[in-house]
């Protein structure tokens, strides 16, 4: 192929693009068509959320189109999914953002096209939304601050009971991804609980929600602080990593480990006595609420700024007794 031919090819491609201006799709029959866009498709938490949303959509006779990114953080890819859904001409979007900041720009186009946006799970940054003029119909999410305070206080009380008066308990905190709202809220909740109980934070690091990274980080923190009494993890996957690290030091059962999300593997760990508590965020209820709220928004109803999903403390005793 000659260079001129190749250049012609590129030019033809560009021309073809401009020539293909599409007609609007004809009106669709039947119920509403709405999109659910989420992240971390392998995380059981989000799978439960998807299931809850699908069941609710079926019950209400709504078509739910679902797309997700496998990673927790691939902003660019999730932005592509938002564009895809708009091109598919969905009537509304429910989104669990991979980035509370980065998702604002792609969502602006939805707003331009008068497609209502329901924000679930990870709250869109208020500041960034205000800067760019994005308005979401409502935020549906668990109260992360409250949940972290609950499970943090539970862990601190266990430690205090074990140590008795006179000795000050020391804990490690494993944070999620800094700057992401739910990670920041959980960190604040943990810190508040530790302070309130009169304990001390011996070390605090981010393990980016990942199990393997949590294992490395915990190992390093334990090496530097051999005398800690507990590890507060911002999600269960990191708690599993912390368990592996604590096990390697032969201190399993002696160090109190708590997580967040109540995933199956965490419940197994509690049954074995390796972990002590977690928070159930009711992801299925969150997905279902998302669908309910989206219909209200489409009907022009004004929704509250925040629609809370109740959080629930699950302890090692609950799991062992088969109560929750």
């Amino acid at each position, binding site marked *: 192929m000659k260079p001129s031919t190749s250049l012609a090819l590129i030019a033809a491609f560009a021309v073809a693009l401009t020539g293909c201006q599409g007609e609007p799709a004809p009106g669709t029959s039947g119920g509403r068509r709405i999109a659910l866009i989420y992240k971390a498709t392998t995380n059981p938490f989000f799978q439960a959320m998807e299931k809850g949303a699908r069941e609710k959509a079926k019950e209400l006779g709504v078509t739910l189109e679902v797309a997700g990114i496998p990673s927790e953080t691939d902003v660019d890819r999730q932005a592509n999914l938002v564009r895809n859904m708009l091109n598919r001409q969905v009537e509304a979007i429910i989104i669990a953002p991979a980035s509370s900041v980065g998702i604002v720009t792609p969502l602006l186009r939805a707003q331009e096209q008068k497609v209502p946006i329901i924000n679930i799970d990870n709250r869109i940054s208020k500041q960034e939304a205000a800067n760019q003029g994005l308005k979401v119909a409502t935020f549906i999410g668990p109260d992360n601050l409250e949940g972290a305070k609950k499970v943090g206080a539970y862990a601190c009380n266990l430690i205090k009971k074990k140590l008795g008066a006179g000795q000050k308990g020391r804990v490690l905190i494993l944070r999620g*991804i800094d700057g992401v709202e739910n990670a920041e809220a959980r960190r604040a909740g943990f810190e508040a609980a530790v302070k309130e109980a009169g304990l001390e934070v011996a070390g605090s690091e981010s393990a980016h929600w990942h199990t393997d990274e949590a294992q490395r980080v915990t190992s390093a923190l334990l090496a530097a602080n051999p005398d800690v009494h507990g590890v507060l993890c911002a999600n269960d996957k990191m708690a599993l990593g912390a368990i592996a690290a604590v096990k390697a030091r032969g201190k399993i059962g002696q160090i109190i480990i708590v997580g967040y999300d109540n995933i199956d593997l965490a419940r197994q760990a509690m049954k074995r006595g390796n972990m002590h508590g977690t928070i159930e965020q009711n992801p299925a209820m969150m997905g279902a609420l998302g669908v309910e709220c989206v219909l209200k928004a489409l009907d022009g109803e004004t929704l509250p700024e925040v629609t809370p999903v109740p959080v629930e403390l699950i302890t090692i005793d609950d799991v062992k007794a088969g109560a929750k």
Partner: protein
Amino acid sequence: MGDLRSRITLGRALVLVVALGALFVLFTVLSAVDWRTGGLRWPFFLRWDNLVDLVGSCAINLTLGVGMTFVIIGGGIDLSVGRLIALTHVLLVVVANATGSFTVGLAACLGCGLAAGLASGAVSVRWRIPSFIVTLGMMMVARGLAMVAAGGKSVGADIDSPVVIQRFLPIVVSLAVVAVGHVILTSTVFGRHVFAVGGSPEAARLCGIRVGLVRVVTFLASGLCAGLAGLVYWSRNSLGDPLAGDGLELYAIAAVIVGGTSLSGGRGSVIGTFLGALIMGVLQYGLDSMLVQPRWQWVIIGAVVIVTVLVDRLKRTE
């Protein structure tokens, strides 16, 4: 002698164009079916917005792929470009936020790409370390520095990209990179030297070509493309995300290979990479549009990479 090897063979181009066309028709037809009612509708895949988004979604891979083509034809490989996107666009955002000037931010972004390319190329050439190893190290360095520059978390950009820039800058930048890359590779002395160096370094040396210098420049080109891809990333997302670009170097390498460039160097074309990147891009974008789960997307895209190369190989042995 560079001329023969620098031209994508007609057969190869035909395979790629047919594959691209077939994918496009496939997704158009699929998008014309309303799965709820079984009826037909105007295929949304042909909507203007969709086509713009489609090309936009290919922009990063196109941009990286062109730089990668130079490096691979020259006999090297560059594993650092994916993570360099994170570093360069985070620098763009952080520097622009600090100085209030987009131009200064852009200079930092492109400068950083060039510096990383120069460092990889120079170390690899001067001390004869395989570029695979040097750029693997650079990938980790870039990942770490992106976190350092961003302060360990995503940074919002004070200067947001307007919607027009968001949608069209990626397309303009990537097509310009393809055009410029194509002209340099096929119509300049430097381009011929790249082929000579990749084909047989010893012969090139005997012909009086400064082999080391040519190789370093290919890495500079790749670094610059990573900087431009950083610009594209910023324009698409208005965000500094230190975790961006994970694994994109492998996508770029795949696009180059699908495009018919030889991994052992000395043979290849930018047009091939252009078509290869579009095939992978249309495939990924189309699968996303059809709501195919990511787990299946990996399987399908991987299989297509293998099949495209296989078809080419079978045609050649015929």
